[in-house]
């Protein structure tokens, strides 16, 4: 049996200002999974992603990526990962193509290989005509797609997306989800954080819900919904509204039930 794409054991993180972000999180993402990591703002999602990708130092615990411990086999673990971060984090004065090609360089991929690969990715993501332009000229949605192209240029086995569709309009968002679904079908393991819960419900096979640094539910999407959905969120057939007049999917009801302040 192959090693899981991501295995997190007892992960703790306390920031220098004393904020306890993670209180011993354990999590496993299987190879080929499309996994949703959900939680309210400040729950610890980005801390998990930051520690996994080497952007944040952990306090204790262990993480392995496809069996490679991120402390003992850092380079091998990082080779497997592609990251689309929450914030736009590239030099806006650089050309779009160069941003992707340079990222390949940091993975040891020569320009002769990286350039055609970057051109193909940018074209697939609808940025073919923007390759020679400075990144600052791109719209918000284009910048997000550029970040996806950059994350894929090293041909990772594990793609991490931290709220990739934040601030992206509906049409572009659907296009991005279609693209990511096609990658998932090709075998790419995807870990996604998003606040669009209905989309996560439709796209993802497994889900974990984190609240205040602790995993409060995890399993297949169906399991989590079946276990925690009390039925109180059932929609009124005449109005289409859930409990309290709220319009949302089952996952959204579960999410609110597990994360809202008591």
């Amino acid at each position, binding site marked *: 049996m192959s090693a899981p794409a991501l295995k997190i054991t007892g992960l703790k993180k306390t*920031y*220098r200002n004393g904020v306890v972000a993670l209180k011993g999180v354990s999590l496993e993402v299987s190879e080929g999974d499309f996994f949703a990591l959900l939680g309210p703002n400040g729950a610890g999602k980005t801390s998990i992603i*930051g520690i996994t*990708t*080497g*952007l*944040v*130092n952990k306090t204790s615990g262990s993480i392995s990526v496809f069996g490679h411990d991120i402390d003992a086999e*850092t*380079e*091998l673990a*990082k*080779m497997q*990962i592609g*990251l689309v*971060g929450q*914030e*736009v*984090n*590239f*030099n*806006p*004065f650089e050309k779009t193509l*160069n941003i992707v090609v*340079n*990222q390949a*360089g*940091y*993975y*040891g*991929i*020569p320009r002769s290989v990286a350039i055609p690969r970057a051109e193909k990715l940018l074209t697939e993501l609808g940025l073919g005509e923007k390759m020679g332009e400075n990144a600052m000229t791109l719209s918000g949605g284009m910048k997000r797609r550029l970040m996806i192209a*950059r994350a894929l240029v*090293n041909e990772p086995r594990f793609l991490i997306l931290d709220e990739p569709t934040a601030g992206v309009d509906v049409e572009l968002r659907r296009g991005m989800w279609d693209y990511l679904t096609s990658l998932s079908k090709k075998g790419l393991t995807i870990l996604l954080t998003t606040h669009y819960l209905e989309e996560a419900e439709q796209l993802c096979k497994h889900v974990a819900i984190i609240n205040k640094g602790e995993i409060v539910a995890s399993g297949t999407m169906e399991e989590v919904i079946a276990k925690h959905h009390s039925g109180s969120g059932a929609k009124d057939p005449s109005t289409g509204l859930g409990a309290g007049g709220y319009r949302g999917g089952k996952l959204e009801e579960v999410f609110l039930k597990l994360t809202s302040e008591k």
Partner: protein
Amino acid sequence: MDTFGLWISFYTMLRKDIVRMFRIWVQTFLPSVVTSCLYFLIFGTVLGSRIGEMQGVDYMLFVVPGLVMLAIVTNAYSNTSFTFFQSKFFFRGIDEILVSPTPPWLLIAGFISGGVVRGILVGTIVLLISAFFTSLHLAIHSVFIIFGFAVLTALVFSLAGLVNGVYAKSIDGINLVPTFVLTPLVYLGGVFYSIHSLPVWAQGFTYINPIFYLINGFRYGFLGIADIPIWISLAVLGGMIAALIAINWYLIRTGLGLKQ
């Protein structure tokens, strides 16, 4: 990554920085050209003609090594400190490298190599300008020593600039050190005079200025004269390089000032 992959990663960082410095040449190369012209004009031509000789050498020729060194020091330092700070603070471009398998030591090598290249390029330009002011009568005692000291000095101040870039929390943190530390040290390190022209108590202060040793060795490469034996200059340079590599390694490896 294998050796080839490491080389590609290093080349990517260096290439990116060189492309950047040529793209904004008005900010990276021109200021040193203008200020060195002014120095040569004022200290060399106007004042130099009144001073005559320093340590038995025409004053214009005496100040050339110091002014070339001034250009190398300031450019190597500011290039590394600013590019690192910019990628850390303005748009977190440093994350592109941190998430990749590029090891910390290579990240250090990538950033400082840009500073070394800029320091050497600007130093060469200033040297060419000096040839104009000295009517091509530039003395060269040892090309090997000149080049060696130029590269080692650029390396020292690139490493120092990286420490500054890692620690700086605002753009002021980048500008304060060159203005209030580096420039006074360079001026008081013997760019414009020999320490033998100072009173004994002031000579004592000069000996604790690391830049004095760099200018001393560099000047020896041009003129064959030195205030102190050249091996002492080399030893000081070597010590500074070792100490700064250790500090940078610790900072980048632990993520101090870089990771949360």
